[in-house]
């Protein structure tokens, strides 16, 4: 399941809902992304996440389908927020449930790597020098390419 929303989410409730009634699940892996207080040597007070409504949902759904093709998942979840977020706030939750931990861990990492390079979100940080658009990191592209099979 994917959700793109302005509101915060409750991790406990999300994870419980993910596995409710699925007694074949032996493990859940999750990644929680937060707003950090520093970008390099610059203090960050808050950030605003812009996205492309419509394409965001399509890309996330596509990435989730791919994860389900590659690993035997009982359930998966991506919740990504947009709008203005203060330091320490939750940005994204990715969770994967499977019978065994290997599939859950790997699929979770895959989903995070891919959404960072494909999902159309952009961060603008508030720094003491004014607003600043975050640059894409080449290490994120490299992280995503390790999952390339063809």
């Amino acid at each position: 399941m994917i959700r793109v929303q302005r509101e915060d989410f409750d991790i406990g409730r999300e994870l419980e809902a993910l596995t409710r009634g699925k007694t074949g699940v032996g493990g859940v892996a999750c990644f929680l992304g937060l707003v950090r207080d520093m970008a390099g040597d610059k203090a960050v007070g808050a950030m605003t996440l812009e996205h492309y409504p419509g394409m965001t949902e399509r890309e996330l759904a596509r990435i989730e389908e791919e994860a389900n093709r590659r690993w035997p998942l009982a359930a998966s979840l991506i919740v990504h927020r947009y709008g203005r977020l203060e330091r320490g706030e939750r940005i994204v939750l990715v969770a994967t449930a499977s019978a065994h931990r290997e599939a859950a861990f790997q699929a979770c990492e895959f989903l995070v790597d891919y959404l960072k390079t494909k999902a159309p979100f952009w961060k603008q940080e508030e720094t003491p020098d004014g607003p600043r658009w975050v640059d894409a990191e080449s290490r994120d592209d490299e992280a995503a390419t390790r999952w390339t099979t063809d």
Partner: protein
Amino acid sequence: MKLLYFAWLRTKIGIAEEVLEPPGGVTDVAGLVEWLKSRGPRFADALGNDKLVRVAVNQTYVDGRHPVKPGDEVALFPPVTGG
């Protein structure tokens, strides 16, 4: 054709979206970007570095050879930074 601009491409160009029909000679994404650059210094500046411009046609990533036609939704944006 509906054009959408996001993140710093939007702030450099100064608008978030517009509806227009490019000249008949514009048949693919590369041609569209070249034509947009000729529309003024804001466009030329925002779209100046090919490496920093991603294009989606009808909400799917495409490359420069992808065709564009009337009625398409074409989005131009910098490399994504979510997650």
